[in-house]
């Protein structure tokens, strides 16, 4: 009987200590919204969450009716997770989410944008990797282009047309040259990062973007103009 009690006591100690071990890392929840990259409308899509060894640890769905809201919990502080979002209407995306170190429960916020995969979809680069009147990629362009590079990598079956518009309507010949050089610089960037060059076609333009023309009046901060660049889904 004494031996039985001793075994139960030991088992209790072991189970308590292992429970305490799991509590060392606090649980974190990630919430946010998922939007259509092009029209910024909220969307409903499946989200799968993988840990750093590729094990699926959670899945959930965003709700378009609730402004694209999603909620993922059960993530541990100090870890890095990959959120993979697949949907028939959108290009597959993966996003790395670093969970901060914390000794208490925390809710952190992350929004994601998904690019539609329908042929003809124009994916405008939010940050221009070129400076005004230049055709060489600017310093730090690799970081700026990392989002579209990931998109292209995650959708190797898709082809894209790179469309560049000029910064002004002053000189049509010059505009053709500069936009062609920009498109080629982008193809070079993708090839350097392991993407087959045949994934892309290019389109230069002599006139500025009709959907986003150069300003005719003084613009407020952050609204200075460089010609638009689109990745168009073929």
């Amino acid at each position: 009987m004494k031996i039985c009690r001793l075994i139960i006591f030991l088992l209790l100690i072991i189970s308590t200590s292992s429970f305490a071990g799991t509590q060392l890392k606090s649980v974190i929840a990630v919430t946010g919204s998922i939007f259509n990259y092009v029209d910024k409308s909220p969307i409903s899509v499946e989200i799968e969450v993988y840990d750093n060894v590729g094990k699926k640890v959670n899945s959930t769905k965003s709700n378009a009716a609730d402004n694209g809201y999603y909620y993922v919990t059960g993530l541990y502080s100090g870890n890095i997770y990959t959120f993979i979002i697949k949907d028939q209407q959108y290009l597959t995306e993966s996003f790395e989410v670093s969970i901060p170190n914390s000794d208490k429960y925390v809710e952190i916020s992350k929004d994601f944008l998904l690019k539609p995969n329908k042929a003809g979809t124009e994916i405008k680069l939010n940050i221009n990797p070129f400076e005004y009147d230049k055709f060489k990629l600017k310093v730090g362009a690799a970081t700026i282009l990392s989002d579209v590079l990931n998109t292209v990598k995650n959708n190797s079956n898709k082809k894209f047309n790179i469309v560049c518009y000029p910064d002004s309507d002053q000189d049509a010949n010059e505009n053709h040259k500069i936009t062609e050089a920009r498109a080629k610089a982008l193809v070079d960037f993708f090839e350097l990062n392991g993407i087959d060059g045949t994934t892309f076609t290019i389109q230069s333009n002599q006139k500025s973007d009709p959907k986003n023309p150069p300003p005719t009046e003084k613009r407020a901060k952050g609204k200075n103009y460089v010609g638009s660049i689109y990745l168009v889904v073929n």
Partner: protein
Amino acid sequence: MIKFKRLLPVILIAFYASTASYAALTYEMKTIGKHANEVLGVFVNEADTQVATCSLDETIKIWGIPNGKEICTLKGHLGQVNNLSYSGNDKLLASASSDMTVRVWDVDKCAQNMILKGHTDQVIGVYFSQDDNSSFIASTSFDKTVKLWDRVLGTEIKTLRGHTKPTNNVAYSYDGTQIASCSDDKTIKIWSTDLETKAPLMTLHGHESPVLTVLYSFDSKYLISSDQTGNIKIWLVSDGSLIRTIKAHDELIQDVSIAADNKTIISGSLDKKVKLWDLTTGQNLYSQTIDSEIWSVDMVSDASILVLGCADGTVRFLTRKGGK
């Protein structure tokens, strides 16, 4: 006519009184240094010993006050740097950039401390909480959101939605209870800083063009805003009522600031004018036209030095003649 004759001395006295303080203020302008491109933001620290400037050239510079000597240049952003804010203890500086990040810099080391990623478009506004621990940072973006970041954890903890067009700037109230954001949707929204409340506490209507900046007075009683058509509006924080509109400039006003007296405000505009105003009366105290468009303004606590960030890349000090 008789009535007018009787009133004439009164009108003259009133006119003299209104222009007396205007005439009393004179400043001497000096260019203290230059960025390689337009200077989009300036922010004077709490101790009035430094001013930080940010630019289209993607850098931040820190300058000494009152000597105007350049202390260091901070590099790291991959796009134009749109705005800046010192932490309440002056040890950290937060910057907002078109590269979609907020960055935190260690002022003493002149080094980058943290990159905060999460906005999905250009970040235009940034403001540190003014508590001693500098715990939180608020930011606004063309992605229409206001984000609140936990500076210690280095992550975003709250996303505030409600603006229907890009948000332009943000301000933290000095009592730490509120954040104000302004937008191209012509509104100002007031948000709670507690982590649970996500709906705006108030939406202020009154501007008839995009609202470009907002700022709380140091006593958190007034909110000051400026817009695309050159108007400044003064709001009462307690109930959101509009108490004054000043037609201040002929072009957009990207920046305003307030002195420690919670009364004197400064405005700078693309009409190349810098002006001082009495918030309580709307009276113009000082006006100066310079040879460049002005993107950003700030001043030391007693308004004895005004700092201008200009479109020609210059950073200029206007020092009050006759000292304090």
